[in-house]
């Protein structure tokens, strides 16, 4: 369970990296597309006519579904993994992810929230990395009940 916890925490780090990368890629693509005279119907179904638009789809699916799901599973695993502080850090990650989705959705019109969305992304990355590293320490395993009796 401790290994599962570590893998999931590192996975969140990796997915946050994918979020930053996909959005940067798509932003460059849309700037180039508009710079060359393109227009788009941002609400239409289907991707806009530039290949980097795939980055927006990755960002949306990964951010709204994949990362929240992994954060939820991490919390469940945390209850079973008996890592000191493991549950607290998993709760913090899930709360930050919920905040992140909210900031992302509202940031479409209230663009200042998109600024905070970028800051919060690093907070998620940082807490997830911290959780993974702490769970990896050899003394980080909470003793089993039987061990208490022997001591």
């Amino acid at each position: 369970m401790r290994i599962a916890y570590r893998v999931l925490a590192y996975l969140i780090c990796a997915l946050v990296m994918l979020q930053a990368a996909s959005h940067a890629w798509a932003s460059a693509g849309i700037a180039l597309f508009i710079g060359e005279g393109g227009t788009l119907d941002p609400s239409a179904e289907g991707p806009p006519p530039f290949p980097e638009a795939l980055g927006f789809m990755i960002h949306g699916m990964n951010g709204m579904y994949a990362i929240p799901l992994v954060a939820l599973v991490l919390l469940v695993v945390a209850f079973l993994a008996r890592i000191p502080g493991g549950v607290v850090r998993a709760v913090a990650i899930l709360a930050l992810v919920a905040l992140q989705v909210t900031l992302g959705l509202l940031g479409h019109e209230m663009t200042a929230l998109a600024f905070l969305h970028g800051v919060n992304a690093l907070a998620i990355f940082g807490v997830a990395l911290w959780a993974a590293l702490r769970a990896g320490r050899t003394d980080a395993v909470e003793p089993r009940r039987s061990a208490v009796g022997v001591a």
Partner: protein
Amino acid sequence: MPAAARAPDGRRARLRRALRALGLVAAGVLLVVVLAAWAASIRPGTYSSMAMGVPDLGGAAAVVGGHGHGGAEPSTEGAPTTAGTPITELVADPARPADVRVELVARAERIVLPGGEAVDGFTLNGSTPGPEIRARQGELVEVALRNESVAAGTTLHWHGVDVPAAMDGVAGVTQDAVPPGGSSTYRFVAEDAGSYWYHAHQVSHAQVAGGLFGALVVEPAEAAEPPHALDVVALLHTYPGTSRTLDGVSGEVRHVAAAGSLVRVRIANTDSSPTVAWASAPFRLIAIDGTDLHEPGQVEGLRVAVTAGGRADLELRVPPGGARVQAPGVSLVVGPAGASPPELAAPAEALDPLDYGEPAPLGLDAADPDRDFAYDIGRMPGFLDGRPGIWWTINGRMGGDVPAYVVAEGDVVRMRIANGSGEVHPMHLHGHHAVVLSRDGVPASGSPWWVDSLDVGHGETYEIAFVADNPGVWMDHCHTLPHAVEGLQTHLVYEGVTTPYLLGRDSGNEPE
């Protein structure tokens, strides 16, 4: 053994175990709640539009046995009640011969985009946009639609025209989708002069984007004075996988008009996102959504918002070098042959219809309405017919739990539309024109601003009013068509009107 394991910490260990047990119980309860919400969100295979949503009487007393909701029970059963007027009887005079008759054949086929690229789209009589339909005010328009090959079935909705309810073209509400090989005839009297458009209202988010639409112009019974030397439509549309087009052409469309002549450009936004238009010459915004504005003043260097589904009619006098009417990526040139008016960047300042033009009587008393409704748009995680996601909400509810607005014929209706959802929503009410009373508490002070499609931005609150003078069951939805798929839709239901048509995954009807 580390210190944490020593005996004095036994109590802490017990506490931790208790907390863990509590956490597991909480997780279990949460799981049950989520599963229950999922199960409750699943709609039956077929259901009536009258049974969708929770009746909202807008402060009026319920009429016993009057409307089709069957009392307070927000039933999701498929069977509509049989009392009242069936929507199928709400038609134009069947004995009256048509003044304008058009036959339209809908096909699914490869369309060649302006850039030369071919995509799978839709055509009407072999073209997209479909044929421009022109009628004179008061004429009876008859359109025979034949679906040759649109597999999902199709319909035609007369966007902005207050047609009789049976002619509204909404699959599952006013008719069944016309299957391949089937036909449907639409008949209505063009009572109000103005700029309109028609489009599919079956799987509309895909069929409209793919090309199933066209322009409808109702010319006034008496010609404008002074008359327009040129009166043209500019349909703004973005086909899947391309940039914006104007009347199906990317880049520039040219019309010849003598210098000094008066021209009218009827701009319609057939996309799912709001856009803007502007002109290189001074202009007047003479109509919005098909209704003339009262004493609109001449402006220059302003952009005009054209919401999704909305229309804006510009009138301008052609300068010697011609004029260019622009929207992002496209433009329409009017002027002497060979004229090359400049391309301008979109102006930073926008024309605000809230205080544009001069006031005139509204023809309704909105201060004391018979029905007072709230249409508050939000966004929440939840289930829409069993699908998890972050969906749009109306008054905090989603899917089948949204309010259904109930009115009686003759009611003056006031509605507050507020948007806290994080995105702009172009709200479209079928079958009626509503007048804007205020925005964010600021009363409208210009010309009466009648709309059928209204841009409500995040954080904005509009108050609108209309007279319930067109009995039926009418969609009231976001014209960012994918948003309607995502739950931003409900109905305006008249007491005593019933519909035999059904919605739902097994009905074959999917108006969104």
